[in-house]
């Protein structure tokens, strides 16, 4: 039998879970389509980008549609997850000011709630790819870069949450940075070779997306070094975000 967790730890987990689940419920509360929205928004983006890239810009890459679909599912997660850091603390200001709950739990709950969405969307994606016969043999390995993506997004979420407490214009700046991030990541365009691709490798998000697609769609196994660096960078960003946040969280309730 594994040792049962201490009551304190169990409670922290329970607080985080309740916050995440209620957050998830509230997101789709009163919307006509409910949860389907979370799948519909990447699908609508898919339609727009496919139209523009395929017919306006004339991209002829084979399998561009699934390439785009995988990219958008990952990107939507990163966007929602990092943005939740900005809104989570402000939304729970009342709680943080009257109950001694670590602020990190509130941010973590926001991350968890977007992770639920990612998990469901990925399951649907894999199902669709499987039915279409487009799933590669290496597909199960895609869990690793998805985990890296989650670590990177969570770390970013903590950093953005800290900035949001300190600076009023953090949300404006973050929406611009997100735009930049979107175009500096091969979400909608294809960049596999050449110096530009090498440059994009500096972006951890680009590395994650490459790995997810290689494993999920292209049956391609890159060098272990590429995988190792990606894991290390994503884990590093996660540690940095959580570490900085924990060092500063005592002052957060009064700053809200």
């Amino acid at each position: 039998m594994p040792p049962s967790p201490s009551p304190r730890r169990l409670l922290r987990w329970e607080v985080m879970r309740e916050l995440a689940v209620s957050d998830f419920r509230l997101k789709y509360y009163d919307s006509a389509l409910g949860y389907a929205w979370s799948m519909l928004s990447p699908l609508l983006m898919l339609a727009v980008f496919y139209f523009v890239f395929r017919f306006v810009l004339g991209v002829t890459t084979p399998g561009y549609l699934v390439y785009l679909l995988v990219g958008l599912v990952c990107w939507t997660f990163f966007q929602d997850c990092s943005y939740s850091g900005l809104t989570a603390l402000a939304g729970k200001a009342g709680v943080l000011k009257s109950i001694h709950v670590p602020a990190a739990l509130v941010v973590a709950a926001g991350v968890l709630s977007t992770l639920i969405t990612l998990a469901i969307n990925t399951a649907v994606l894999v199902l669709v790819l499987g039915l279409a016969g487009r799933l590669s043999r290496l597909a199960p390995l895609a869990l690793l870069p998805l985990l890296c993506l989650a670590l990177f997004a969570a770390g970013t979420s903590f950093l953005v949450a800290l900035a949001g407490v300190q600076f009023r214009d953090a949300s404006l700046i973050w929406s611009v940075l997100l735009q930049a991030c979107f175009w500096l990541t091969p979400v909608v365009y294809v960049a596999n070779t050449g110096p530009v691709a090498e440059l994009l490798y500096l972006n951890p998000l680009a590395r994650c997306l490459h790995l997810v697609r290689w494993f999920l769609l292209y049956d391609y196994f890159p060098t272990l070094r590429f995988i190792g660096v990606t894991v290390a960078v994503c884990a590093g960003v996660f540690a940095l975000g959580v570490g900085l946040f924990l060092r500063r969280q005592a002052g957060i309730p009064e700053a809200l």
Partner: protein
Amino acid sequence: MIELRSVSKVFSIPHQKRRTVFDRVFGRGHYTYESFHALRDVSLRLEAGEFLGIVGRNGGGKSTLLRVVAGIYPPTTGTVRVDGAIAPILELGVGFNGALTVRDNVFLYGVLLGVPRRRLDAELAGILSRAGIARFEDARLETLSTGMRSRLAFTVALLAEAPILLVDEALTVGDEAFQAQCLSELRRLRDEARTAILVSHDFTLLRELCPRLVLLDGGRLIADGSPDEVIERYRSA
């Protein structure tokens, strides 16, 4: 036991609420701060099993003191020592969300106050019937009246078995019957030898529950003694 040793809490309030990145980069040193001393050199010792009432005018530092004891605000100087877990009822029903069902709110509020989820699950029916809303389990909280919501919050808050309670004006809501119920619950907790700090403007309630009061004014603790002494001091100040 709760012990505060020369605790001060200073908030630095920028004249504009929060600075922006823009100002940080282009307007360094542009900012002026106002130092607000919410607590000045407060020392206080409370034994286990004691019920302490805090009185004072608005802005006197009462809520800040509770937050410092609860560990929500770190003190600027001085030390705070608290032996035992704390169940703060600073604001009844904080964290409630009208769009969620009554059941979901019980779980959310309960775990926030430190009640294990399993226990909430097991006692849900009892909680709802004690709060007088037995049939509303699946109703959205927003469909309940304010009084019903306060009763629910109070019932859940009482489940927190922490030995130390911090109560901030929680009992000024609800009808007469609800207030009587709150009073009798608090009396029961006192007889169980729990420790509590109550902030209130209701002197009748404080006389009833607390053998000792302190008076906070301008962040200073200016009186500490029996209810009669302290209330007289408050009125004459």
